[in-house]
C-alpha cells in the first residue's frame, strides 16, 4: 500500500513539506533564480543567508569542491569563488601553498588534455557521424579507431625490437655484425631451405601473384619469419639476443593488448553491481538516458524517436511474454525443450559441416599448391586462396542459418539476439582454429624416420613458420578484398537500383541495413588473425593498420550513402561492452594456437632465430641458465610447486574474503532500503496526524 501525497489534504502538507530539512537542502543546491523559493514558508531569509555559506558545512573549513563543480549559474559561481579566495587568507601558509600548487597543476593538466585532443584521429568525422546517426553507430567507429591505434603500437613494438636490430646487424650499420651458428646435433637434411627469390627474368604476373600470396620475392623479405635467421647479433659491440627479443616481444604485444582491452572495458563499465540487475535492460536507463543529445539532423531525430518507441514497446511486450512463459503447461514445456534440443543438434551439424569443409579445403590447398608449376596462374592462385574462400563462405552462410533457426526456438527477443550473436562469434573464431589445426596436422604429420628426426615435415615445409605466416597474410588480404568488393559491387548498385527503379520488389528489398554486430564480427575476425599471425610475420600489424585505416573510410562512405540504420540499433554502452567482450574472446582464442606453436611444435631448423633450440619456448630456460646462481634459484623457486600451492591458497582466501564482504554489503543495502521505505511512510503518517490535529 502506498501513502500517496494525494491522500493528505492539499493546503497544510504543502507548507509542511516545504519546511522539511531535506526539501530545503535540495533548494539550497538549486540556489538559482527560481521564483518559488521566495514564496517558501520560512525559508527565504535563511536561504539567502545560507547561499554563500551553503558549501561550508564543516565548521570554518572552506569548501573542498571548486566553484565549477557546483550546479550554479556563472554569476553565482563567481561569487562563490570570490568567497573561497577571501577565505584563503585565513588558512595557514602550508595549506595556501597546497591550494595554489594544486590549482596550477590542474591548469597544466587541462592544457595537456587540450593539446592531446588535437592529436585525436578522426575527431571531426566521428563527431559528424554521431550527429547524424546517434551514439550506437558512433561506438562502432570509435572501436575501429581503437583497433587502428592498437595495431600501430604493436607494429612499433615488433619493429623496434625485432626488425630494426635485424636490419641494422645484417647491413652492418654502426659496426654491427651477425653470426649464424649452425645448430649442432641436427641432421643436415633438416637445415636445407632455399626460398626462390625470383631471380632472373620472370613474367610480370608472377610479381602480382607473389604479392597476393606471400610467396616468391615476398618470402625472403622481413615480412616473414624466415628472414630472421640470426642466432646472435652485435649492435656496435653490444650483444643483442635476438631469439629472446623475438619471443619476449610476442609476449609483450599479447600482454599489452590484454591490458588495454581490459582497461577500456572497465572505463566504460563503472557500475556497482550490488543489486545484480541487468543494467542494460533497465527501464530507467532507456528512459532517462534514452535520448542522444548530440543528434543534430532532424531525420536522425525522427528515426531515433521511432526506434525508442519500438524499443519501449518491445520491452513492455517482452515483460508480458514472460508472464505467458511462466504459465506454460508441462506438455508445452516438454514440446519446447525437445524442439530446442533438435535445433541445437542441427546447429551442431552445421558447425561440423563448416569445420570439415575447411579442413578438407586446407588439405587440398596444401597438397596441390606445392606441386603445380608457375605456368598456371589462375588455378594456382585459386588453390592458394581456397581456405580463405571457404572460410568467408562459411562466415556468410552460417549466420543466415542461425538467424532462421532461432525463430523456431521461441526465446524472448533479447535472448534471441544474444544467442545468435554468440553462435556467430563462435563460428567465426573457431573457423580460424580449424584452419590452423589442419595446417599443423600437415606440418607435424611424420611418416618416415628421417622426418621424425627433425620433428616436422621437412620436405614440404622446410620453414613451416613462414608457411603459417603466409596463410595468415592471405587471410588478411582476402578479407580486405571482400570488404572492398561487397561495398563496391553490392551496396552501390543496390542504392542506384533503389533510387531509380520504383517497382515493388526492389522497393520492398530496400537498402542494406548497417548491421553493427556483423561489422564488428568482421573486424574482430581480422584482428584475431593479426594477433595469431604477428608471431609468424612481424610486419603484419602494419598491413592490418593500413587495412583498418582504409576500411574506416569505406564504412563511413557506405554508411552515409548506401545504408539505412536498423530499426533497433544497439545502445552505445551495451555496444561498447559487447565489442570488447568479443575482442577479448578473440584474444584468448589467439593465445591457444600461439601457445601450441611456441611450446609444443618443434621450431624449424632451417630458418628463423630458434634454429638451435628444440622449441621456440626453449630460449627462455636457456637464458635463465645463464643468470647468476642466486637469481636462478629464485626463479626456479617461483616456478616450483612449493611456491605455487601456497600462493594459490592465499589467492583463494583473498577471494573468499571479498565475496563475504560483498554479501555483507548487499545485506546492509537491503536493510537500509527497507528502513527508507518505513521512514517515508512514518513521515506521511505523522503529517496526516498533524493536519488532523490542526483541524481540531
Amino acid at each position, binding site marked *: 500500500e502506498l501513502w500517496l*501525497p494525494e491522500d493528505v489534504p492539499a493546503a497544510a502538507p504543502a507548507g509542511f513539506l516545504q519546511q522539511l530539512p531535506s526539501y530545503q537542502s535540495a*533548494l539550497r543546491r538549486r540556489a538559482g*533564480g527560481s521564483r518559488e523559493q521566495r514564496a517558501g514558508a520560512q525559508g527565504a531569509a535563511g536561504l539567502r543567508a545560507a547561499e554563500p555559506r551553503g558549501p561550508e558545512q564543516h565548521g570554518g573549513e572552506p569548501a573542498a569542491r571548486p566553484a565549477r563543480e557546483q550546479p550554479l549559474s556563472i554569476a553565482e559561481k*563567481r561569487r562563490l569563488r570570490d568567497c573561497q579566495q577571501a577565505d584563503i587568507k585565513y588558512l595557514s601558509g602550508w595549506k595556501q601553498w597546497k591550494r595554489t600548487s594544486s590549482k596550477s597543476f590542474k591548469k597544466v593538466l587541462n592544457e595537456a588534455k587540450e593539446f592531446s585532443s588535437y592529436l585525436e584521429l578522426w575527431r571531426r568525422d566521428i563527431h559528424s557521424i554521431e550527429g547524424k546517426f546517434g551514439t550506437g553507430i558512433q561506438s562502432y567507429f570509435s572501436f575501429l579507431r581503437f583497433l587502428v591505434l592498437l595495431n600501430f603500437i604493436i607494429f612499433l613494438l615488433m619493429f623496434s625490437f625485432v626488425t630494426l636490430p635485424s636490419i641494422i646487424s645484417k647491413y652492418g650499420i654502426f659496426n654491427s655484425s651477425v653470426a649464424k651458428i649452425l645448430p649442432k646435433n641436427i641432421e643436415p637434411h633438416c637445415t636445407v631451405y632455399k626460398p626462390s627469390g625470383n631471380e632472373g627474368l620472370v613474367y610480370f604476373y608472377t610479381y602480382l601473384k607473389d604479392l597476393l600470396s606471400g610467396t616468391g620475392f615476398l618470402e625472403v623479405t622481413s615480412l616473414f619469419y624466415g628472414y630472421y635467421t640470426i642466432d646472435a647479433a652485435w649492435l656496435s659491440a653490444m650483444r643483442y639476443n635476438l631469439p629472446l627479443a623475438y619471443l619476449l616481444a610476442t609476449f609483450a604485444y599479447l600482454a599489452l593488448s590484454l591490458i588495454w582491452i581490459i582497461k577500456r572495458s572497465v572505463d*566504460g563499465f563503472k557500475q556497482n553491481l550490488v543489486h545484480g540487475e541487468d543494467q542494460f535492460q*533497465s527501464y530507467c536507463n532507456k*528512459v532517462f538516458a*534514452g535520448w542522444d543529445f548530440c543528434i543534430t539532423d532532424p531525420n536522425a*531525430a525522427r528515426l531515433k524517436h521511432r526506434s525508442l518507441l519500438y524499443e519501449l514497446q518491445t520491452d513492455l511486450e517482452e515483460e508480458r511474454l514472460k508472464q505467458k512463459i511462466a504459465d506454460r503447461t508441462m506438455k508445452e514445456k516438454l514440446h519446447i525443450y525437445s524442439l530446442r534440443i533438435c535445433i541445437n543438434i542441427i546447429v551442431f551439424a552445421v558447425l561440423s559441416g563448416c569445420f570439415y569443409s575447411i579442413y578438407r579445403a586446407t588439405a587440398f590447398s596444401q597438397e596441390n599448391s606445392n606441386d603445380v608449376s608457375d605456368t598456371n596462374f589462375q588455378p594456382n592462385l585459386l588453390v592458394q586462396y581456397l581456405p580463405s574462400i571457404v572460410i568467408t563462405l562459411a562466415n556468410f552462410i552460417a549466420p543466415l542459418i542461425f538467424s532462421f533457426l532461432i525463430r523456431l526456438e521461441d526465446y524472448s527477443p533479447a535472448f534471441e539476439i544474444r544467442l545468435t550473436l554468440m553462435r556467430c562469434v563462435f563460428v567465426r573464431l573457431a573457423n580460424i582454429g580449424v584452419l590452423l589445426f589442419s595446417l599443423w596436422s600437415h606440418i607435424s604429420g611424420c611418416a618416415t624416420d628421417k622426418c621424425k628426426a627433425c620433428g616436422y615435415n621437412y620436405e614440404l615445409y622446410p620453414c613451416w613458420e613462414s608457411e603459417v605466416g603466409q596463410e595468415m597474410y592471405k587471410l588478411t588480404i582476402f578479407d580486405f578484398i571482400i570488404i572492398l568488393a561487397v561495398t563496391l559491387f553490392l551496396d552501390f548498385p543496390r542504392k542506384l537500383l533503389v533510387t531509380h527503379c520504383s517497382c515493388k520488389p526492389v522497393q520492398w528489398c530496400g537498402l542494406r541495413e548497417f548491421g553493427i554486430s556483423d561489422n564488428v564480427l568482421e573486424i574482430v575476425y581480422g584482428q584475431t588473425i593479426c594477433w595469431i599471425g604477428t608471431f609468424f610475420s612481424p610486419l603484419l600489424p602494419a598491413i592490418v593498420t593500413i587495412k583498418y585505416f582504409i576500411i574506416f573510410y569505406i564504412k563511413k562512405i557506405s554508411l552515409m550513402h548506401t545504408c539505412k540504420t536498423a530499426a533497433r540499433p544497439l545502445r552505445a554502452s551495451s555496444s561498447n561492452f559487447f565489442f570488447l567482450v568479443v575482442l577479448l574472446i578473440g584474444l584468448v582464442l589467439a593465445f591457444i594456437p600461439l601457445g601450441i606453436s611456441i611450446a609444443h611444435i618443434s621450431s624449424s631448423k632451417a630458418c628463423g632465430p630458434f634454429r638451435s633450440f628444440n622449441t621456440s619456448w626453449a630460449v627462455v630456460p636457456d637464458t635463465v641458465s645463464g643468470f647468476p646462481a642466486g637469481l636462478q634459484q629464485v626463479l626456479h623457486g617461483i616456478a616450483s610447486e612449493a611456491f605455487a600451492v601456497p600462493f594459490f591458497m592465499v589467492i583463494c582466501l583473498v577471494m573468499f574474503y571479498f565475496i563475504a564482504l560483498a554479501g555483507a554489503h548487499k545485506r546492509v543495502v537491503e536493510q537500509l532500503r527497507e528502513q527508507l521505505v518505513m521512514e517515508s511512510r512514518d513521515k506521511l503518517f505523522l503529517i496526516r496526524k498533524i493536519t488532523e490535529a490542526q483541524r481540531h
Partner: protein
Amino acid sequence: MGGSASLLPREALSEFQELTFLSKQEILLAYKRFSALLPKEERVAVCSARVPKSQILTLPELRANPFQHRICHVFSTSEDGDDSMSFEDFLDMLSVFSDSATSDIKSHYAFRIFDFDDDGTLDRKDLEKLVNCLTGQGEESRLSNAEMEQLIRNILEESDIDKDGTINLSEFQHVISRSPDFASSFKIVL
C-alpha cells in the same frame, strides 16, 4: 566576421575557463556561434546581450532536441521569465553538456530538465511527459495508456527507493550513477 564583431577579452576567457568545464577552443567557438545569433548592432557587446528563445532554438544542436524548451528554461537566468539566454547562460549550458563535466553536475541538471512542473520531484505526470517527448510528437507515436502505466510502474519500481510515488533528486542521481548510457548520451559538443 567583419569589423563589427568584438573579441573576447583575455581575462574573461581565463575566468570562463576556470568557472566552466570548457576548454579555451570551445569557449571561443561558443563565442563565435553566440555572436552569429545576435543582430549586427548588438555584436559589439556580446557578453551583456540576451538572445531570445526563438533564436537559440535555431541552433542545429537544439533544433532536433525534444527537450529544447526545457533546456532554455533551466539555463536561462532571465528575470522576465521569457527564457532568453545571455552569453554566460549559453556557456553554462555548454559546460554542463561537455565531455569533461562531472556526472554529478550532469545528473543534477538532467533532473531539472526532466522536472516539467518545477516542483523538485519527478512525479507521474513528469514521467508521462518525459516518455512522450522521447517517443515523438505525433498521435500515432505515443504509447497506449496501458503501456504507459506499465512503463511508469516499472520505472518507479526501479528508482523510487522510499516508495512515495515520486523520484527526488537523490534517488534520481542514484539511478543515473548506475545507468551505463547516461554519460555518452547527455552530451552536446559544438
